[in-house]
């Protein structure tokens, strides 16, 4: 897996020709390693990756992978993924048809001078304060990758103690490419 540098700039470093693969897998030990290993050995680049149990049944998880469609033809990536026995369904969502969301958590160093302006940033970006102490504030934003990028830029004016982003999850816009049904 090729992590872009710097690590935090996930979205701003996402290439123009990225695709979002929503991969339904069996919820079994080692499946993530199989998927990640396939990308590594075939030389496909991953820009972000998010894993969680899928909506209906505990036996499946969904892996949302943002892939670099310039590192290899998307068709090859999809077909090779499909050969993994634990991969149940793959849907490819073109960026324009995708509803993409990410979660950003950041702890910012604060003092009496900048606390008010930081609260303005929080308010205007749609973020929320989730923890506060005398010297710092932890804020959260759930939004589009672009909104997370924008907030990250705003936070450059402050001292960021820690910042984490989840990598994106995505669903197709209503009426666009339908997800393939999970077989029983």
């Amino acid at each position, binding site marked *: 897996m090729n992590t872009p540098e710097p690590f935090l700039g996930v979205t701003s470093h996402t290439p123009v020709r990225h695709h979002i693969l929503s991969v339904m*897998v*069996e919820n079994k*030990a*080692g499946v993530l*390693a*199989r998927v990640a*290993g*396939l990308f590594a*050995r075939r030389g496909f680049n991953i820009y972000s990756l998010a894993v969680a149990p899928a909506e209906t049944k505990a036996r499946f998880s969904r892996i949302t992978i943002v892939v670099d469609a310039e590192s290899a*033809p998307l*068709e*090859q990536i999809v*077909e*090779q993924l*499909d*050969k*993994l*026995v*634990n*991969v*149940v*369904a793959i849907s490819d969502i073109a960026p324009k048809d995708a509803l993409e969301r990410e979660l950003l958590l950041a702890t910012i160093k604060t003092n009496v001078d900048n606390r008010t302006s930081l609260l303005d940033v929080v308010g205007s970006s749609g973020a929320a304060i989730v923890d506060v102490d005398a010297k710092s504030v932890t804020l959260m934003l759930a939004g589009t990758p672009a909104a997370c990028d924008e907030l990250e830029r705003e936070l450059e004016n402050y001292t960021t103690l820690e910042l984490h982003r989840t990598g994106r999850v995505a669903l197709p816009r209503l009426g666009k490419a339908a997800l393939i049904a*999970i*077989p*029983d």
Partner: protein
Amino acid sequence: MQLTGAQALIKSLEMEGVEVVFGLPGGAILPVYDPLIDSSIRHVLVRHEQGAGHMAEGYALATGRPGVAMVTSGPGATNIVTPIGNAHMDSTPLVVITGQVATAAIGTDAFQECDITGITMGITKHNFLVKSAHEIPRAVAAAFHIATTGRPGPVLVDVPKDITQSMMEWWYPESIEELDLPGYHPTVDLDADRVNQAIELIKDAERPVLYVGGGTLKSHASAQLLAFAERTGMPVVTTLMARGAFPDSHPQHLGMPGMHGMYSAVIAIQKSDLLISLGARFDDRVTGKIPAFAPNAKVIHVDIDKAEFNKVRRADVAIRSNVAAVLEAWDAERAMPQNLEVWWKEIDAWREAYPLVYDEPNDDGLLRPQFVVESIAKAAAPGTIVASGVGQHQMWASQFWKFEEPGTWVNSGGAGTMGFGVPAAIGAKAGRPDRVVWCIDGDGCFQMTAQELVTARAEGIPIKVAILNNAYLGMVRQWQEMFYDERYSEVYLSPDLPDYVKWAEAMGCVGLRATNVAEMHAAIATANSINDVPVVIDFRTDSSEKVFPMVAAGASNDDIMVHPRQRESQ
């Protein structure tokens, strides 16, 4: 019926119709070796786990049935990694059972622990770590199902020792649904539209070539291939993995394409206007420089694995299917190309101008390796199975042996695994005891896995081994001569060290040596008269002999180098 996990494992193998397991016991697999005593399954005790894997491959290639190997954890498991990788490259159906340390010890760096499912993730079609005795039947049944359906391949089943020692209520999956493989769909219905699109291309073709790969053998499509080729009159080439899929004696057969292919096979592909790939994968050893490969050809690509489509060469029509079904569908539609008379005239001219040649046999000096292969072939019983290692001798075996039927050529293609020959020949003979099995080997390859001749003698598996002993790692030597200005680096092996005759005798085999033509014929005759123990012949061959034709690595197939004797007329 209550069984131990070990009993369930053996019983599961019996349920799958396994007749022979190649293996070597050790701590973690120990419980499974106890019920093996009471089983109908034959166990072949190897001397090194790599031998078990290659024997299972040889068995599978000769019989068409999955090969089975069983080894212990840790080094036992890592020793079989090379055969697993080899089987993965060549799509050979293999089921490998490995012992594992007890569940509670996994992850603690226990004695002889290794993460074999992790290690083999990229070189198996799939693998399992079994977590309960109850799951053993499902894992074994799934392993055989996955290994043998769709594009075949190796499947590994890792079984911890406490699982084989615990009790389970016996059951066995009765349907594919019970295998619980929601993501595995090895076959699809034949796409009639694509079949018809391909027929449209066939109708327009004036210079078609049937490019036959290993998938044709894997899908048992030789009869359909023969029928289709004869009805349409198209020329046929068979890749290294497909030797035997179409009779070498057939007038429409141009032979093997690729780096050391027949001139006419290579050039016919280059000049073709339609390339019909049947279970082939456009390997770099066949294509040479990809942009220069068959530049004017439209491509029909038939493969059961759709990941092969457009991987190397864009297909004009890609059909996901086994080869047999497509050929039958085309035959049903009476698909015919244009009149091929002009095309055959060109091909015949190439065949006539550049046949396979080598320098005349030398009565006094060292033997010509090509002549040795031809002489063994000429004296061999019909239906003889040939195994080989990897290198010059492998290419000469493929070039100079005449293969007439499937399952008679056992070799390592994609991985190029030196040392494959001896154990693979043993596996082939174990699976086809009615057939004569020759291993055409090199001296370098022989030294890698020769210890398995002890296995062959002990188990009563009388193979015949021809060492083309040129005292060199010959293929590397050839490249150093041709591309590294004759600077020979670490390729000399000595013809006398080891003494192959004494070594063979020490392993309970008959050892023979041939240093000239008369001795060669005598040794072959002696070997053919011995059918109870393995025979090894040390043929002293000329190290200056090179494999021709040759397309240099990365070069265009148009730049094929023929034998020096033919160059003036090229």
